[in-house]
């Protein structure tokens, strides 16, 4: 681990250091802008830490290798951006189905396709939720600063180990390439979570039989448990089944594992929302403009607040539902896409508040003034809500 104390570093470096602090000793990746600095930092740091850095032939291999390493008992990570993230969708699903703890970093850049490799966007939000086929429960964390690239990477590993799934750290080019103060805490102050281990002897152990928290203990390969792991629908022994009841029980549990533990997983932050009539919803790099827009609006007498989801999945749905019923008249979602989280916000208001969108197609973040202009327009009822 790096020397505790204050450092000046970019988001991607902080992410790599966060992974190291969390106990990551296996990294497989493929170079891609704007995520490559994470690979480079890890490749530079791993020899002294006796870690394994693998540069794979593509992102399909990168994510699959970290799944294998996780079953070898390692804490494992990969990092990529849009095009690579699309390739990872296949085995992100395998990781969710086989309940394999690991961390996937996606540094968002402009899309679709090759898009804007060197510039910011937030177009992959729904892909993290629904990008892999089938019904899934997912955890996605969105950092807004280099400090959070460190802190949330540690948190992502902890959640991955605790709930046994691939957790996504959804950064963007701006946050990843921004250089700021990053405070690294002493090792003893870090909370590090490790996966639950089997309590039953191998003859009685059921590798996919969950405890009350719906998470099964995990036997790694080579520990004598003879575990069978398959991407097919499987019973709690891990054996494939084409039985409808098994499918129902397994998939329900994989979703409930996140849904029913959402109170423990959920993270969000509020700013001046107590009396807010207009609440801005922003995440990632846009949050940084949005917080300034709140202050600008307040100075001009508008009652504006800010809600920032830190876990974008699970989404702070109940909080938005409460706000919509307790004085918030409008939500303004500022995101670098043509509207993704805005639909989530609208759903959560259940018609009790209006929802507006400040879209941006990528290349830069919103300026505080752009958000401010929207606030004025909403106040003067000059913009229709986002669907009209």
């Amino acid at each position, binding site marked *: 681990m790096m020397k505790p104390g204050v450092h000046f570093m970019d988001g991607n470096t902080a992410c790599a250091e966060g992974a190291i602090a969390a106990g990551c000793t296996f990294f497989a990746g493929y170079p891609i802008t704007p995520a490559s600095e994470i690979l480079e930092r890890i490749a530079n740091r791993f*020899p002294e830490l006796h870690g394994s850095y693998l540069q794979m032939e593509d992102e399909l291999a990168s994510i699959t290798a970290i799944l294998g390493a996780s079953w*070898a008992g390692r804490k494992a990570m990969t990092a990529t951006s849009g095009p690579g993230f699309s390739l990872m969708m296949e085995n992100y699903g395998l990781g969710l189905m086989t309940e394999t703890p690991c961390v996937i970093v996606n540094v968002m850049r402009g899309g679709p396709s090759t898009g804007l490799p060197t510039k910011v966007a937030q177009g992959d939000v729904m892909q993290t939720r629904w990008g892999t086929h089938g019904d899934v429960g997912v955890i996605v964390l969105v950092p807004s600063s280099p400090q959070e690239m460190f802190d949330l990477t540690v948190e992502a590993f902890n959640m991955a180990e605790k709930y046994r799934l691939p957790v996504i750290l959804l950064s963007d080019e701006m946050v990843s390439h921004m250089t700021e103060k990053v405070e690294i805490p002493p090792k003893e102050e870090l909370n590090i979570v490790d996966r639950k281990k089997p309590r039953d002897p191998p003859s009685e152990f059921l590798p996919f039989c969950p405890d009350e928290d719906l998470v099964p203990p995990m036997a790694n390969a080579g520990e004598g448990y*003879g575990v069978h792991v398959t*991407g097919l629908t499987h019973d709690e022994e891990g054996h494939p089944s084409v039985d409808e009841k098994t499918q129902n029980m397994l998939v329900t549990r994989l979703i409930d594992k996140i849904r029913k533990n959402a109170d423990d997983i959920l993270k969000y932050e509020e700013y001046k929302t107590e009396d807010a009539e207009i609440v801005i919803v922003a995440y990632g790099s846009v949050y940084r403009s949005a917080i300034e827009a709140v202050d600008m609006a307040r100075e001009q007498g508008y009652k504006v607040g800010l809600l920032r989801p830190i876990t974008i999945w699970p989404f702070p749905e109940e909080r938005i539902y409460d706000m919509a019923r307790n004085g918030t008249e409008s939500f303004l979602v500022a995101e670098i896409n043509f509207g993704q989280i805005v639909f989530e916000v609208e759903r959560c208001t259940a018609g009790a508040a209006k929802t507006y969108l400040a879209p941006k197609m990528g290349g830069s973040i919103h300026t505080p003034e752009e958000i401010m202009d929207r606030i004025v327009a909403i106040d003067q009822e000059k913009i229709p809500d986002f669907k009209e």
Partner: protein
Amino acid sequence: MSIRKSRDWFSPDYMEQKPKKGASHGLHPLDNYLRKDRIPHIWCPGCGLGIILNAYLRALKDSDIAPEDTAVVSGIGCSGRAAGYVDVDSFHVTHGRAIPFATGLKVGKRDLVTTVFSGDGDLFAIGGNHFIHAARRNVDFNVICVNNFNYGMTGGQAGPTTPTEAPTSTTPWGGFEQPFNLPAVAAGAGAVYVARWTTYHVEELIKSLKEALDKKGFCFIEILSPCPTGYGRKVGLKTGVTTMKHFKENCVVDNDADPTEVGLDPNKPKSKIIVGKFVDREAPTYQDERGKVFEAARKKLGVE
């Protein structure tokens, strides 16, 4: 066979329903290596996979490797189901991705004797890129490729090893793609051990598998195998037995053959087959090379 239904995790009689592991029916000498409650397997009558799995388990038994130090990784397809029958840590992953998964597993835990057990379509079509790169890196694991010349599980479609004159469900008007010569691909990409056998050559196959299990580095064994259901019946190899006779009559053992010269007839399903151990050389493994570089790095950094 009774099909076990999934149990309710929270039902009061759950403990009683727990499967009794390790209860042998005592009929097969390899029972200790099989998940007996998963037998009989799903493979068709006449399929070669039973012979190949048997050969692999015999090699494992003969090589004194403890089952708990062994892992099997499979992709998707008929061969992919092998992982579900072996009573070791076994991983049945996505189509084509057995090799990168095994790479992570092996590099993550270097003492684990790891074998990829999969088919020609899985390893050389969808997984072809992973295959050549794992061979290039010389990662220390074995790849068993069961080559049945078609996609059997999905109903007999043409694949990367199908001869052009073999009618398949996706070449109803005839084939026109040239098939791979798998030993040449493996040797060209850097495999340190390359062999080809058929399900007729059981003893040679067991010997080869044992050599591969004992050898450090990326070892590749192609095994030609009957698929009467998906392929054989369309090319005049109607049953497992006729295919075995074909192997018996047309195989030539040539251990010194140049892998680039052992390609099967690209057009005819029935042709001369050269089998043997074509490559067996020494080269530093991925893990060894990386260890050296990292050791030097630590020395430079002044850390243990």
